[in-house]
């Protein structure tokens, strides 16, 4: 029984790790967002596994996943908005070229 939980948690951890790698290693804003998406996906896997195997009666667990999904979508919407604005001004969304965003 817990085997499934462990498998899910390990998968979530690996997805999270890939996401961390992507977010740190990519130079492009959009690619960085992909890393973040993967990290969130890993987190969601964990959340669902916890809900299913530890507290299937507590639906706030599912609610949490819904909120994470919303965050994912909103992160993308705002991220793309910034990307468009940046591209319009500077002609690039490479983060290495984004000195002014680093402050």
């Amino acid at each position, binding site marked *: 029984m817990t085997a499934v939980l462990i498998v899910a948690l390990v998968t979530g951890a690996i997805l999270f790790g890939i996401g961390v790698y992507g977010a740190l290693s990519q130079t492009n804003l959009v690619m960085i967002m992909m890393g973040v998406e993967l990290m969130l996906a890993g987190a969601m896997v964990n959340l669902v596994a916890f809900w299913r195997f530890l507290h299937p009666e507590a639906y706030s667990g599912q609610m949490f996943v*819904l909120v994470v*999904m*919303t965050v994912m*979508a*909103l992160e*993308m*919407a705002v991220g793309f908005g910034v990307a468009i604005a940046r591209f319009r001004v500077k002609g690039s969304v490479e983060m290495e070229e984004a000195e002014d965003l680093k402050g």
Partner: protein
Amino acid sequence: MTLLEQYRLLLALAIGVVGSVFCLYSLARAIGLTRQEPGKDVPASSGALSRDPVWGRYHARYYGYGLLFLAFDMEMAFMYPWAVVYKEVGLVALLDMGVFLAILFLGLLYGWSQGAFRRQ
């Protein structure tokens, strides 16, 4: 059927469809192979042989809609569970969702006023 049996059935169905398509492909291969000839593999462009790759930065003119869609799309994640219990909960549910949708609708109106609903 339990949940997992249903999913297994759907998965098997998908794999079955892919399998039958592959059977069809091998049948077609049995009939004959494609003969390599000059010009044949160039993407058709109405009589002109344009060989340049087209994979460039494509200007999607609908990105204004796209941004709003990304956000607005999330609304339905909340709407489906709401719809299922709507009758049971009654007026409170209507008011709840009314407030939620009104908030989102404000966002749409803002987008509209700023010119997100046009070809950029």
